[in-house]
């Protein structure tokens, strides 16, 4: 072997660098697996315990009059979850998206926008049970018995969702390149038109993801519903009137039934599975809709 003036082979540092690479890769893959373990166990366990209970009659029958009775279904809780989460979404998502648009497109670094941003961050940090108590105090108590309704629960869930939607919308809008806004302005369009026709459609998939995140987060909330919606054993489609019920508080009360009553335990597992499936289904539908919408508007 002759000595070459230029060495293209790797130096002695090669070993250390490769070692670092292996260590880092191992740590990352390891963390991923560790994070996966609880998720997998939850899903598998809930399926195992819940699947045997889940049946057509379980999904479509009214709740038993008491948790300590056997039989019955969870239909009212499913309906409650759907209408309450739906009402919360209908209130919080449009408002949150408009808020996010205001913060990024109009407010910018202004003092009012900074205050709104700060309050949204504070609101994100409020524990859900405190939000429930807040609604209980300002909405339910003044109305006495008629205060307990799906709407009161929806208010609490909406308050939890709102800051999430505002902040994700703002973050997504920040990613829309200014060149697109300038390109639109240069054609003689006004600010509102530019936002509606160019900025928002470009950001829509991300904004919808943000809204979904908010919905999925609140659909499983128990605490804010415990003292705002009351309880019923028959389905109540009316959000505004009468007590209601939902899957999370039903899971809570059934699982907590004194003495570990087997039928109630099973019912809780079945409802947990139903809740997971509902959230999953909803996410899936929203994803498909977003994909179709994006395809149409960008027509790739």
């Amino acid at each position, binding site marked *: 072997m002759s000595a070459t003036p230029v060495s293209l082979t790797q130096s002695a540092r090669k070993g250390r660098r490769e070692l670092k690479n292996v260590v880092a890769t191992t740590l990352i893959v390891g963390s991923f697996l560790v994070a996966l373990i609880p998720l997998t166990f939850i899903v598998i366990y809930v399926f195992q315990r819940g699947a045997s209970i889940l049946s057509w009659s379980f999904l479509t029958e009214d709740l038993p009059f008491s948790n300590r009775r056997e039989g019955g279904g969870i239909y009212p809780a499913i309906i409650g979850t759907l209408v309450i989460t739906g009402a919360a979404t209908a209130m919080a998502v449009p408002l949150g998206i408009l808020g996010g648009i205001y913060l990024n497109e109009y407010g910018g670094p202004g003092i009012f926008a900074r205050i709104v941003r700060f309050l949204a961050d504070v609101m994100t940090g409020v524990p859900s049970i405190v939000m429930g108590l807040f609604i209980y105090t300002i909405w339910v108590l003044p109305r006495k018995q008629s205060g307990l309704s799906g709407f009161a629960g929806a208010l609490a869930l909406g308050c939890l969702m709102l800051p999430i939607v505002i902040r994700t919308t703002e973050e997504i809008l920040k990613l829309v390149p200014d060149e697109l806004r*300038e*390109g639109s302005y*240069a*054609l*003689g369009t006004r600010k509102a038109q530019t936002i509606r*026709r160019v900025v928002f459609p470009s950001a829509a998939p991300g904004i919808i993801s943000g809204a979904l995140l908010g919905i999925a987060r609140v659909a499983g909330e128990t605490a804010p519903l415990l003292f705002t919606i009351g309880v019923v054993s028959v389905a109540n489609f009316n959000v505004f009137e009468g007590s209601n019920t939902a899957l999370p508080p039903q899971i809570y009360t059934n699982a907590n039934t004194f003495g570990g009553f087997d039928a109630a335990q099973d019912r809780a597992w079945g409802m947990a599975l139903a809740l997971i499936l509902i959230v999953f289904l909803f996410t899936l539908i929203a994803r498909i809709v977003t994909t179709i919408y994006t395809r149409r508007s960008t*027509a790739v």
Partner: protein
Amino acid sequence: MTDTATATTRFGGLTTTREESAWQGPDEAPPEEPAAEDKPERAREIIFELAGVEVQYSGVTAVTGVTIEIAANEITAFIGPSGCGKTTVLRSLNRMHDITPGAEVLGKVTYHGQDLYGSKVDPAEVRRRIGMVFQKPNPFPKSVYDNVAYGPRINGTKRSEIDDRVERALNQAALWDEVHGKLRKSALALSGGQQQRLCIARCLAVEPDVILMDEPCSALDPIATARIEDLMDELKNQYTIVIVTHNMQQAARVSDRTAFFTAEVDDAGHRRGRLIEYDVTETIFTHPSDPRTEGYITGRFG
């Protein structure tokens, strides 16, 4: 003397070998060209007048001392080194600075005799008449058709006329033949040169009077650049074009008049742009009156 030879002498070494020289001197304009007849009649209709224009960003002057007149149906080029304020001046012509926080235009800019920054002037209306093509192609993430139809739709063009408008604009931008089969495809799937011509078509679809071009070819290869230069030459019969370019040969090839800007650093260390010279392109490139212009075009600095 052939055109090429003429061009070579005229540019004094900055050769342009393209046969169709961008400007027509009185002696070389082909007699059958209709423009030659009405040329004296419509010669030099001044549409933009800038008097002592200065642009500041958050109180810091970016460019100052700009006094020029821009004539209709001409191509006016702004050249100069980076940071000399060419783009800044260009953006003051259609009030694009309005959307930049902290930017302020001082001095007077008039368009057809009206103060462009007057209190009653609607910036959206200004930009509808004075369109802009940007340095980086910026098609919207929509279909080719929707990109071009965007401006007409916003400006309330009748639904039935939009198809025609789109086809006409794409034809004018020399893009129709390449895209007429994929109007529904995403504009982002086009090549860079096609995207830039799409942006030109998008601008033309609004039927503006003036097109401002901010280094429209800097991201394009020579073939795409040549196509856009040819296009500008055709468009100047109908439109007034103001182009910012880093490429001196491009300015020499396409423009009728050239403004040379440079950047100077003051005692406080602030860098600010200044207009040095504005004249017929031929004069700028052959007998510049300022040594700084000569230095720049001969490559001694910048």
